[in-house]
């Protein structure tokens, strides 16, 4: 449940951030969010990956549709993806997801050294750590 909240939170902050900041805001947001909000490593990666991959996927599809794919297949030949618009859209989502996921994972790893094992027994919400590992 918390993972879903986090994904939504990251996604919302990324969308807002992309209006004002360069593309790498999608790395900064999951890094910070996973630094603040506790998750395990896998959750940290997925929170970043899923939220950004979704945003980039949706936006790419919207642009592709609105412009009748005028540029998609051309770029898919330059890159080279055999001219497949679908492959380029998926690649876009994967690249965004990967960058965000890795940043999220690193944010979590950073949290793990900042917060010592003793303090870690209790989370900010007063519940034992193990309760979140589900």
């Amino acid at each position, binding site marked *: 449940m918390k993972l879903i909240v986090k994904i939504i939170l990251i996604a919302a902050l990324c969308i807002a951030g992309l209006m004002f900041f*360069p*593309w790498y805001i999608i790395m900064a947001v999951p890094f910070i969010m996973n630094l603040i909000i506790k998750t395990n490593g896998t959750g940290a990666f997925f929170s970043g990956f899923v939220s950004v991959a979704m945003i*980039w996927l949706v*936006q790419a599809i919207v642009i*592709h549709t*609105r412009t009748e794919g005028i540029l998609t297949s*051309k770029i898919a030949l330059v890159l080279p993806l055999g001219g497949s618009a679908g492959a380029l859209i998926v690649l*876009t989502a994967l690249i*965004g997801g990967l960058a965000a996921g890795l940043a999220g994972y690193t944010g979590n790893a*950073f949290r793990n050294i900042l917060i010592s094992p003793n303090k870690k027994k209790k989370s900010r919400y007063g519940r034992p750590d193990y309760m979140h590992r589900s």
Partner: protein
Amino acid sequence: MRILKFLLFALLTAGLFHVMEFGVSPLPPLGKFLSPFSGFWQNAESKNAKIPATLEIEGLIEDVQVIYDDRMVPHIFAKNEHDLFFAQGYVTASQRLWQMEFQTHFAAGRISEIVGEKAIDLDRMQRRKGLLYAAELTVEAFERDSLANSILQAYADGVNAYIKSLKYKDLPLEYKLLNYNPEPWSKLKSALLLKYMADMLTGSSKDIELSNAVALLGYEVAELIYPDFPDSLIDPIVPRDVKYNPPTVQLDTPAVPGLGIRIEVEPEKSSDNIGSNNWAVSGNKTATGAPILCNDPHLQLNLPSIWYEIQLSIPQYNVYGVSLPGAPAVIIGFNNDIAWGVTNGTQDVKDWYKIQFKDASRKEYLFDGAWKQTTVRVEEIKIKGKKPMFDTVVYTHFGPIVYDATLTKDTAALNLASRWTGLEPSNELMTFYYLNRAKNYADYLKAIETFQCPGQNFVFASASGDIAIWQQGKFPLKWPKQGKYVMDGSSSIYQWQGYIPQSENPHVLNPLRNFVSSANQHPTDATYPYYYNGFFELYRNRRINERLEMMDKITVEDMMKLQNDNFNLQAAESLPLMLKLLGKITEGVEYVEALQKWNYMNDALSEAAAIYEVWFVNLDSLIWDELYIQGKMMEIPQEFYTVWMMHNYPHHSIFDIKSTTDKVETLEDLIQLSFHKAKNALNHWKEIHKEPLTWYAYKSTSVQHLARLIPFSQTKIQIGGNKRIVNACDSRWGPSWRMIVSLEKPIKAYGVYPGGQSGNPGSPYYTTGIEKWSRGEYFTLNFLQNPEEISSGMIPQILKQK
């Protein structure tokens, strides 16, 4: 352990960030590039995209009204000239910025900065030709002329206002793909563009090739196959009934012309495909009684197109036509009173001199028995991802040493200096500025008289009924054969002694035949009082003149047909002989039958045209086998002279194949052999392509992106013609803008070019004209008299002063 894990992933994340933000050659930075919020996706444009109704721009004096028509041609209405050129710069940049900068980077020898070391040879050659040097001199010339200076500054300010408004997401696609940023525009860049054109049109003279031919074949054969002036065969620009006065300047002529020095240099490939057609017919020959002017310059077919269509209007004048992205004003076009167009005047204005240095330091060279000082320009060539390279270019009083041992890596190489009119300070731009506002023949004459390089045939027609053509340029005075071959740089007798007086440049006003025309042929017949040489076209002009001669009550449709005429005069003059000498054959009978039925039209769907062209190419390379020598600059004679040799000297030794020692071949043998080869080539083509043989499919015309990115190009376009044909479209070169202007009241004009107004491969306006162009159709040009003439489908925009 945790720390180690964090460090590992921090490093991994940082590495990924680095790759995605800065890129790893040859890939673009994937994060930056693929982000749908700022990367390439943002360059995809929808057909229904809104153009903002107003834009606030710093630098305008008053508001400017721009109207974009349904092809995105901007019609700019300004209240003063500063704002006009400012807006031209701004609007042009908004559609063509990457191309503008790339072309000037190309001219300046700065492509290695963008693509890395693979472009070093190209960049070095550009520097050695002196294009950057010449552009710097041109800027000084601009700055001495306050009007020219203010026009160029306003244009540059307009471009820069646009560049300043850009964020990464707005950058043209190519910057994102090649991962670099635009730099501020400057007068130097406009000057570089003009030198780029001068170099393209006059920068490759054949002196070195012809010297090699003399060394190889002897002077007599060289003069036979590369004649200057086959007077009885040509159809000059100035009709033969025009009489010339005796020369007003006399020259010192040497006893022996500098001939036959063998030149061991690696070739810089030049194209013989550059050409153009223009003509104007007087009202006496048209259906409306008003003159009609036509022009189609033949250039390399690129995307974005070399031309950008535009209308420029201020209260004092109103002009429409095509501009060169990067330079103010309209280059080919019309206003309410006149129309003008250009073709290349292919007189040789670049000569080569062999320089003898005192020693390896190259600080002094021999000239008239004394040692003369050189100057040195050190060219810094920046290279992407590498340390810059420095190339020392030595300048003599002739011009730069282009070829030497440091370039060719061959210690035996000669030091060759070039003398080129393109390296002299000049201000060609003002010619166009004055043409834009010209009202009559006198204005036209005044506008063109300062034009130096590239020499152009300026065709002219006025609503008041005049037609005229001038070959205008700065043309050196030459004694016979001067500058046809590489000359001795140690004696003043070989240097240029002056220029043909401007008023004696070839020209004609309102000739008896009621039309003027040019298609890169000899400007005059042999009675012209001055010697000139060059490579002149010998087919298109004869076809055009023959057609114009025959026509009467000419309509715009007739002119459209003539611009798209596919008649292959070369085939008409060579195929009957080829078929006769071929005799009886047993294989490839179907090809001969197709040729016998052929009407000599190189139409897109013609099979016979493809057969003829393949056969002739094979024949040509068999005939000139002696000239295909590895690593030597050689020039294959023009097809016209090849055909002329076939008719007049069928037993000449050039027809012997040098590699066969047991036999002396004649023309007849070569025709049979080449047919056999052509038949095999055609059969092979059909096997591979699995489609019927047609001329267009064989020729496969493509309009290619400037960075040669095939996905951004259009290939295999269904169009006929060929070089040497009026519709001069071969596989990579062709009519780059077709324009027809009928100077009736009000003026009617038609035009089309193989590209679109937008330079963005993601725009619906990227290739607008290509289909119509290939079919020989035209757009009606919207020559608005005022902004109130806006019609449906057009979009108004106000550029507001900020």
